[in-house]
């Protein structure tokens, strides 16, 4: 019975929605997408409404599916993004009978939002691709990344890929390669970005993680934080932040930057909680996720990192 009721409700709802759309279209002489572009502020608020409107539209269903197929297959690259957007914008303006020369502002806003919609999906694809990549000892590139991680955090040399010293930067045992697990190279790439781009900050966080009473394992906590943000990305929860960041290009670097922010914020919460011992990790991790999600659920969310040691 509930299923039937729900179906009835949704069909009434869809009917009502299209009725309103038609009514407003006649009244304002603007299509829904135009009303969104002219009536909302740039960023998440506008882009998510465009996304939802396109998802629902029967008339634009083909334009929508052929547009998002590109990033979902990982083909929304620098070389063909302009072409992809142009095709979609042309399709939409033709079907909606909007004169692009007259509604220049609309076309510009639409293109900007469509770019973010595609970039987010492309980012999901790329992150998943790197996550599935396992650490490969025969790949010099992988080995180098691991060595860079060491060298950026420590001044003493490391003897090799298997050494007790890896525990000094928070790996579990002698062989760091076994710690990446389900996060694959995404876990390592995140860490390497943090320690190279924000070196002072990363060293500071590492030293805090070595606190005799409130310490934790830097590297494996980092890998757990990769898991956290990768999950949020897949759930679409990073859209507020990334759509609001207003950057022309959204890419894997934005995910790495977010990771640095998350690491620093986690470290701050960890110490503030004064955990009895490291066994409290699960509880504090869950609490941290809840706080982060609450921030991300605000329409105007922009997570901005503290770039220097002094600020933390």
């Amino acid at each position, binding site marked *: 019975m509930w299923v039937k009721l729900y179906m009835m409700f949704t069909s009434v709802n869809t009917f009502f929605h299209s009725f309103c759309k038609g009514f407003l279209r006649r009244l304002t002489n603007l299509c829904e997408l135009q009303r969104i572009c002219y009536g909302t502020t740039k960023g998440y608020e506008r882009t998510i409404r465009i996304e939802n409107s396109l998802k629902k539209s029967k008339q634009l269903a083909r334009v929508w599916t052929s547009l998002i197929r590109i990033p979902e297959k990982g083909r929304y690259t620098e070389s063909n993004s302009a072409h992809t957007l142009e095709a979609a914008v042309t399709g939409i303006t033709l079907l909606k009978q909007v004169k692009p020369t007259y509604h220049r502002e609309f076309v510009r806003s639409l293109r900007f939002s469509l770019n973010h919609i595609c970039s987010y999906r492309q980012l999901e694809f790329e992150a998943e691709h790197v996550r599935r990549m396992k650490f490969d000892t025969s790949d010099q590139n992988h080995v180098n990344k691991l060595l860079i991680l060491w060298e950026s955090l420590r001044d003493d040399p490391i003897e090799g890929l298997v050494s007790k010293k890896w*525990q000094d930067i928070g790996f*579990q*045992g002698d062989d760091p390669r*076994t*710690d990446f*697990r*389900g*996060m694959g190279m995404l*876990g390592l790439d995140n860490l390497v970005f943090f320690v190279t781009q924000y070196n002072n900050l990363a060293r500071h966080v590492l030293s805090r993680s070595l606190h005799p009473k409130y310490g*934790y*394992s830097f590297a*494996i*906590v980092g*890998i*757990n934080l*990769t*898991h956290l943000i*990768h*999950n949020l990305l897949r759930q679409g929860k990073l859209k507020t932040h990334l759509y609001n960041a207003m950057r022309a290009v959204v890419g894997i670097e934005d995910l790495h930057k977010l990771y640095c922010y998350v690491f620093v914020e986690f470290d701050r919460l960890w110490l503030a909680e004064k955990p009895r*011992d*490291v*066994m*409290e*990790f*699960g509880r504090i991790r869950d609490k941290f996720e809840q706080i982060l999600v609450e921030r991300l659920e605000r329409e105007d969310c922009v997570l901005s990192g503290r770039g220097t040691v002094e600020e933390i």
Partner: protein
Amino acid sequence: MLLLPTMLTSRSYDSGSEGLLALLRKLKPSPDKELRILLLGLDNAGKTTILKKIASEDITHITPTQGFNIKSVSTQGFKLVVWDIGGQRKIRPYWQNYFDSTDILIYVIDSADQKRFEETGVELYELMQCDKLVRVPLLVFANKQDLMNSASPQDIADGLNLNGIKDRTWQIQGCSALTGEGLKDGLEWVIKTVKPMTKR
């Protein structure tokens, strides 16, 4: 044990309200008997993967366990509450905080990591000496049997001298947390072992 008194009283429901109460009690499903299972082993042995596989969860996004994970699974009238504690050397000293009222100890070994057999043997030996775990039945999962270079459960049992364990029931079970093979057999042994204990 829990069902027995209810069944007895329900037969004598000729005595008015008492009988009705018994009947109601009979209708109410009997709660699962809770079993506390401790999952230990070195880091990278596969404890979390086993835990997630048992709970029928996705195992492709596993991360190293900082701290511990808990999950409960209901099977054959038992509610298994499984505690998966991180295996990193640094946190092994905390293992003992979780020993109290353990019904079953499951010790997980990476059968393909021959270099660490000695280390895992030492840890297991130390667990066997703990007062709080005395007489707690032991199931050893010889995990990663799907890997080419894995040692057989028999070889591991010999190498770790499991036959020397005389103060408790124990069992070694080859398994692959990845494919799920052997896990069911291991859990069946767990249930078979604790059933007589719960009736006592």
